[in-house]
């Protein structure tokens, strides 16, 4: 699990990677956003103050999804009309990675998925648009124009200079969930399902004053 450490090119602090395939990470000390090129790290940006933290999840939180253990190793923070939400980057014990989105304590686990058919373009998509992926009938239930608010920890790609982030959220009749991420061209498709907080058996959660998990 423990990966060779590198040195932050900005402040010289040790940078420890939990995941050998991580492309990007942040320095815990100086909050530099670091991108990995072979063995070298390049500072590409600086994380501004993160918005007030509302999620019980944090980097280092561990849990179970479909009998596979995972650890939270990074996140992207977005905000939109109804507040901020997190896309937590999960590293599974079998080496694969996925995402746990936490939007106001509505949780969904998803994985990057190769689209079966071309995704609708950002101008073609509308609420009620129907899309079938892996035999699952999905309907667009929300169109969101999110703001990129920050990153933390290890990510599978470079992600640090976004501003406007259009998303389409899709739902099915059997609890599946998908997101079309229009920040990339062609857009990315993430397919997954909604999960109950209890079912994730999360450990190392944040504590909230006056509340017990």
């Amino acid at each position, binding site marked *: 699990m423990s990966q060779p450490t590198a040195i932050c090119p900005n402040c010289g602090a040790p940078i420890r990677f939990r995941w050998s395939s991580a492309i990007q990470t942040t320095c815990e000390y100086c909050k530099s956003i670091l991108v990995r090129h072979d063995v070298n790290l390049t500072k590409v940006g600086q994380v501004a103050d993160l918005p007030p933290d509302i999620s019980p999840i944090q980097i280092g939180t561990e849990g179970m999804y479909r009998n596979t253990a995972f650890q939270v190793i990074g996140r992207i923070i977005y905000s939109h009309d*109804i507040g901020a939400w997190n896309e937590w980057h999960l590293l599974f014990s079998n080496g694969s990675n996925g995402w746990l989105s936490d939007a106001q304590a509505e949780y969904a686990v998803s994985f990057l998925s190769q689209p079966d058919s071309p995704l609708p373009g950002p101008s073609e998509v509308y609420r009620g648009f129907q899309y079938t992926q892996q035999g699952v009938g999905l309907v667009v239930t929300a169109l969101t124009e999110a703001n990129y608010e920050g990153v933390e920890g290890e990510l599978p790609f470079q992600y640090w200079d976004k501003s406007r982030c259009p998303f389409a959220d899709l739902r099915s009749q059997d609890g599946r969930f998908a997101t079309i991420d229009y920040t990339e061209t062609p857009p990315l498709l993430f397919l997954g399902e909604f999960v109950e907080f209890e079912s994730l058996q999360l450990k190392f959660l944040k504590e909230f004053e006056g509340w017990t998990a």
Partner: protein
Amino acid sequence: MNPGAPKIVPKPKALNCPSCGSAIELRAMGAAAAVVCSYCSVTLDATNPQLVILQRFQAQMTVQPLIPLGSRGKLFGAVWEVIGFQQRGIDVEGTNYFWREYVLFNPYKGFRYISEYDNHWSFVTPIPSLPVPGVNNYNRPTMTFDGVIYDHFQTAQAYTWFVIGEFPWQVKVGEIVTAADYVAAPKMLSSETTENEVNWSRGEYIDGKEIWAAFQLPGAPPPAVGVYSIQPAPVEVQKGRPWKLFFIFAALLFGMMTFFSMRALDETVMEQTYTFQPLATGEKSFVTKPFQLKGNSANLRVEVMGQLDNSWAFFGMALINEDTGQAYDFGRQISSYHGVDEGESWSEDDKLDAAILPSIPGGKYYLRIEPETEPVPAGASPLAVKPITYTVRLIRDVPFYFRYFLGMFLLLLPLPFMGRKRGNFEQTRWTESDYGVPPNSIAWQANSASGDDDE
């Protein structure tokens, strides 16, 4: 071991309303999108540390929440804090119908809602799945979710009239959504649709008393008015319940019947054959030999059997207690007729008649019998007048079935009334719906059929 040691997220600090300066308590740990000042009703952006004003408005109405903001209670397995409150309404043909919603928050489990209409309460959970649309046999829309079929109740534009506290979306007075309700009492499936978003939730009817207990509210919930769309039918008329009760009591009766008939003595106390000569003169009545009736108190079956020939015989009888002289008077009649009419032979026999004397105390008894028959016609040949031979049999403590069958019949009587009561309840439930009648009502189908004709 633990890479990210648990941090304790402190309670949010109280902030001051930028509009009126009053203290605003943020309860949702920053999870809320909007907060409405309880004092001046200004709506603020709760995601912005500066609490930017989203909306100022002249209060069109002021509504006091029955569950105060900040109350905590355990409902449906988790602790919830009331962080927001709004009054919404729909306009149906010029009449405003209002209901109230409480926003509940738990930092781990997210948001739930309590909805209240005419003091009927429901607990509402957002659902991530999409229900499956359909129609019922009467061509009315349905939604299926988790194996339950919900019948469409109403679709209306819901208008937000009053808000205070925190909300997971940027709530605004004047906000309009298309709200559709589907019911399968005690549950409701609801959708709220705007141009860019549709959200589904499932509500469950909950007794106001449970809410009062959960949030430790003083006093009692105000009495509910009328029949609510997802109010469970009164327990005594719930589906299958009257029949269930009928079967329970019928089984009880059957059990009693079996028990008492098995316990019954069913013992022949006396069986004696007598002959009565209609031509005989003098006193016709006579008494039998005394016999013993066992037990404390039990019934006594008295049977009279005899073969007659186109005649009848009546037996005036008295059961007399030898010790006390108490007499039970009764009479039985037997008859037998036969003949040939238009070549067809016929017969009408009543060869046996029996009486059950209830609750005869034990003791020594005898029977006085006074036989009587058709008077012998004057001038009839004495040889034509046959003597009547009959048998009297006394049976102590016979099993007695009739009352049980009567009981079963009486048990059946209320069923049609309960069915009607249930029907009336359903009728009332659906009065405020878009259809005015229950989803299985032929009346609506007839209306819609005639509506089609108009087109």
